[in-house]
């Protein structure tokens, strides 16, 4: 345990999360994955948006960027394209990534930029006390869906896959071992990777929907899921209504920033007279 504390800014603890929240489980899985992969702390930038889950970066001892609501992936895009050698990881929530930031999610997927996005999906806006999110299941309650949610939620993994993400996986805070393994694979994947983590918000979602406390909410999540490998052996009627967990999509495709570096190399080969040193004034650049 003690060795993982070195990944935290211990002077910033204790954290702000409620007892029984799943955010700590996911944050723990992330640092253990980084530790087991043996990655250099100084070569990792962790970016987040706004919401409970996005507060994780404040506690983590890396270069960390706590941005505006919904824009974590857009900020991360700038970090990654400016310095493609950095590992860039985004921690975001379901409101942050699927509502206000949905556009950035699908476009980062489309570009296949080398960013790992961990979406902590707790079915609600926890920071603002339990409003319905784009991931609140149909019929469930939220403070802005007091008569049951009339909207339908996304299948975020299908969305990411359709948009072009080359690694897509889903885990839950109940299936911790799987979660850590999938985060590891996502970090090492070359291209845009998404790990959706179904997580519990007992304080708002669990209580509002009379599911119970942390344990009951965690079990409620577990009972809806089925591992993708197990599901493959089952007849369709037994898979009906179940949420698949595990590695759902893993393909190879050229990564965006590497392709851009190839463009630079090609352009510079055909324009040998141009000033290459970024620090040298280029007034003459367009003079012919």
């Amino acid at each position, binding site marked *: 345990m003690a060795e993982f504390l070195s990944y935290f800014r211990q002077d910033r603890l204790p954290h702000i999360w409620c007892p029984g929240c799943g955010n700590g489980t996911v944050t723990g899985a992330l640092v253990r994955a980084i530790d087991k992969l043996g990655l250099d702390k100084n070569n990792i930038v962790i970016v987040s948006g706004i919401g409970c889950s996005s507060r994780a970066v404040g506690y983590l001892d890396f270069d960390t960027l706590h941005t*505006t609501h919904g*824009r974590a992936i857009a900020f991360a895009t700038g970090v990654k394209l400016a310095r493609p050698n950095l590992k860039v990881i985004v921690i975001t929530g379901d409101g942050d990534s699927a509502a206000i930031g949905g556009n950035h999610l699908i476009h980062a997927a489309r570009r296949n930029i080398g960013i790992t996005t961990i979406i902590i999906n707790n079915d609600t806006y926890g920071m603002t006390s339990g409003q319905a999110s784009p991931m609140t299941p149909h019929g469930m309650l939220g403070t802005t869906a007091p008569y049951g949610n009339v909207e339908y939620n996304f299948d975020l993994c299908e969305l990411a896959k359709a948009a072009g993400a080359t690694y897509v996986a889903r885990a839950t805070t109940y299936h911790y071992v799987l979660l850590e393994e999938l985060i590891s694979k996502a970090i090492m994947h070359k291209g845009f990777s998404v790990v959706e983590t179904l997580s519990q918000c007992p304080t708002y979602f669990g209580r509002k929907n009379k599911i119970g406390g942390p344990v009951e909410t965690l079990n409620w999540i577990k009972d809806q899921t089925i591992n993708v490998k197990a599901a493959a052996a089952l007849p369709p009627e037994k898979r009906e209504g179940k949420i698949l967990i595990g590695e759902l999509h893993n393909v190879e495709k050229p990564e965006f920033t590497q392709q851009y570096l190839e463009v630079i190399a090609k352009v510079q080969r055909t324009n040998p007279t141009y000033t290459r040193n970024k620090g040298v004034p280029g007034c003459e650049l367009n003079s012919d």
Partner: protein
Amino acid sequence: MAEKAKLMQGNEACTMAAIAAGLEFFAGYPITPSTEIAEMCAEELPKVGGKFIQMEDEIGSISACIGASLTGAKAMTATSGPGFSLMQEAIGYASLCEIPVVIINVQRVGPSTGMPTSPAQGDLMQARWGTHGDHPVIALVPGNVKECYELTFRAFELSEKYRVPVIVLSDEVIGHMREKVVLPDPSAYKIPMRAMPASPAGYKPYAADPNGGVPLMAPFGMGYRWHCTGLFHDENGAPSSKPEVASTLMRRLEHKVGNRAEELADYVAENLDDCDLAVVSFGSSAMAALSAVRRARNEGHKVGMLRLKTVWPFPTKTVRGLLKSAKKIIVPEMNLGQLALEIERAAGCDRPVIRLGKVSGELFHPDEIFAAIKEAL
């Protein structure tokens, strides 16, 4: 190197200056009348090893620029009214977190979609107060193509030096107008670069003199492992809700730019010393204004001209001093009196400030301003 004359557009001059200043990263979204800047960056940046990305919207564009700047790259975006409005939240983020970034706003008539291909100067107040909360910002207004080059370069100098977003308030006429420009010898320029700490040991990302000091900025990925947050933060970068931390931070940010308003003043003055009437303008409106003022002078009237190049922070004392002889002031601008508000404040309420606003999407004709001068005399 010999100086070279070149026929170029304002937008082109902005781009060339940015590259001369060491631009490494451009993120943008197409919008008239700024699009040429994105197009040129897409073509030119790879040649110097820089990066261009067309983002999915203007919010993404400025967000990506801020992310890039955090790694030490000089970053810029370009847009016009509707896109500038979308960028406001992130401009506030850059102000609070003190991330250097340059934003070229080639103004067009608004609000809303307005008239995309017609000029305006209606974003003056948005440039100052567009994001929520008190915040530092610098805005520069070029009055011709050569100044697009000079002030874009200056924008990088100020942005890097003071760690603030700097806005170049161009407009459709300045951006699209072509003029012969003699560019300065590049060796005369010193490439702007933010002050960086020497080593990670004991680094405090927001430690600075509370009276407007600028903290040292460590690039991401160099072992500093610091936290950048849009929450109010202490000198260690840790989020804080303590009243004294919030107040100290906010006042330092305000002093950082506000205390330097007169030092940052940049303007062109003509015949103000003995004038009875002063015309104050900026950007493309000032071209017509200057023509009218000179005509009035030639007819023997004591008329002077002040053209502002730095509009934010507003150099109140400097402007008051320059206008001391004027008994009346006319402010021609392509909006309904935004600069006039500042001139009224600087000049005092004991003399008339005549608002000569225009929001038809047309440029001023010198005759209109000349007629206003004659009427006021």
